[in-house]
């Protein structure tokens, strides 16, 4: 599903350069739920950005679903992102002047689907996250948990191979966090491959595999027994 070999990435800071990723080897199979942990500066976000094709590695190999991701043009990256990946962000990143339904339908617009089809699919995914009744509400009229669920529905809308979540519960309280995690676990049960970047141990424990990063290398990679999240709704 996902294959990474000897990935290196440096950032130029003034005259010197900062070596962020120092040779990452990683392999993720279909249906896995992986937590990537590490303190800030460990390179976990950079790794996620490269996996998410938002950033490109300096060297190394990255193969996603048998497609080698290399020398992407902006246009190609956009197509791959749309086809392969669903993003979930800490700060939700919903478009504030579009209602819930329009937000969910946006990736489908970039897929070139017809309006009617888009709305139908978007409604289906909103129902899946339990927010069909809120479809006409703007993000500002939703709670944090609801916003994140709309964001998850949006990430699911284009039916991606891989869900990438960057601190998905970082802006949420404990109760809402476990709701969201329970939902992500449910998606994983249904067969979705999920990658979660987090620095919270209890969130990581809810995944099936934990990868710990420190100073740009993988310190630890272990399979864990999944702690099931308690849904409150």
């Amino acid at each position, binding site marked *: 599903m996902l294959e990474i070999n000897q990935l290196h990435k440096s950032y130029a800071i003034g005259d010197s350069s900062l070596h962020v990723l120092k040779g990452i080897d990683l392999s993720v199979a279909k249906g896995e739920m992986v937590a990537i942990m590490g303190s800030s500066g460990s390179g976990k976000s950079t790794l996620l950005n490269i996996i998410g094709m938002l950033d490109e590695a300096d060297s190394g190999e990255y193969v996603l679903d048998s497609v080698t991701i290399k020398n992407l043009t902006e246009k190609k990256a956009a197509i791959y*992102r749309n086809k392969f990946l669903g993003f979930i962000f800490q700060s939700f990143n919903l*478009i504030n002047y579009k209602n819930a339904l329009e937000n969910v339908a946006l990736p489908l617009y970039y897929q070139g689907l017809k309006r009617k089809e888009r709305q139908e699919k978007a409604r289906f995914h909103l129902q899946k996250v339990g927010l069909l009744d809120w479809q006409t509400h703007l993000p500002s009229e939703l709670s944090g948990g609801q916003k994140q669920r709309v964001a998850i529905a*949006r990430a699911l809308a284009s039916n991606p191979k891989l869900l990438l979540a960057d601190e998905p519960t970082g802006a949420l309280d404990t109760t809402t966090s476990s709701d969201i995690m329970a939902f992500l676990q449910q998606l994983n049960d249904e067969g979705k491959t999920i990658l979660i970047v987090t620095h919270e141990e209890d969130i990581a424990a809810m995944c099936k595999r934990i990868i710990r990063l420190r100073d740009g290398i993988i310190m630890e990679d272990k399979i864990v027994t999944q702690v099931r999240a308690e849904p409150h709704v």
Partner: protein
Amino acid sequence: MFDIDLWREIFQSINKNRTRSLLSGFTVTFAILLFTILFGLANGLNNTFSKTFVDEASNAIFIRTGKTSKAHKGLQAGRRIQLKNQDFVYIKEDFDSETEYIASKVFKNITASYKNKKNNYSLIAVNPDNQYVEKSKVYSGRYVNQLDIDNQTKVIVIGRLVEDELFSRTSALGKNINLSGISYKVVGVFSDDGGDDEERIIYMPLSTAQQIYGNNDYVDQINLTYNPDFDYNQAIDFGLDLEKKLKNRFNVASNDQRAIRIFNRAMQNKGINQMTSVLGILILIIGMGTLIAGVIGISNIMIFIVKERTKEIGIRKALGASPKSIVSIILIESILITTLAGYLGLLVGVGVLEWASPVLKTYFITDPSVSKSLVISATLTLIGAGTLAGYLPAKKASKIKPIVALRDD
């Protein structure tokens, strides 16, 4: 390609930022408003020029004579130059391809009476061609024709006001008017855009007048129109050539300004034409300058918009928006604002001209309207201006890296 969803996106974005969009459009509205008004005024000025001279055909040349002011070829100064029928024939034949219409004229002042009504009018004896040189409009009956000339018939064609004054609103056609003791039959009534004086004229066949009022073949003035295919320079050259040949014919010194005087409308027209084109260029420069200021204004605000929407654009890119779709959103928004704002300016400008046009008449500005072709070219210019204004911001937007845009602050 018409993409309804793209337009939906754009309207949503404009609608969300109404004040901002309005403000950015304002400069363009103002630019087009200014341009429209200036253009309309120039147009009105132009109309006034052409209306002032509607009295005669715009390609008229008048030949008048007087006394010589310089001795020439042994002839003394002060000799009277008299045009005759043979001069008319000479011009008509020697300048056949250069002239369109040609007419001889004899002027008289007469007292006209019908029943108990009496008034003084100018009597002008003419050839049939004169109708076209003077641009007289015969609205009842007919003009002087060749048969009248050949037979020296005692017929007249009277101006609208002559009919009004002598016949008090009954038709003059077929009635006889007494002109200083001789009775003439009215065969036609004409109107003329040149003003009241032009409609207080009585026309009579040239040959009739020559026989009755002097029994000679004298002509007071020869009017002609030059070949309408001539441009101004050709027409002016023709006028000069004509003057030279006539001076030769009458043994007049070439620098004698009084003996033979030729008035050529082409000279006047050329001057007016030059003035209006300079005025047009000036207005174009002012209008373009303002428009460029407007474009820069919109461009500025679009850059600000892009900056403000950096995060949104990043999200869109993460969701799979191609650079092209980002560029079209920004570009079309810019074009839309520019075009709508420009049209508003155009509309207000036309409205102002319409409203002010009665007032402007006092300042020699007639019917200051804007033509259809201007509206079309303005549309194209505005679309071009919008593209120009949106190009840099759109380029900037398409270069936004989602990773930078999505970084949590």
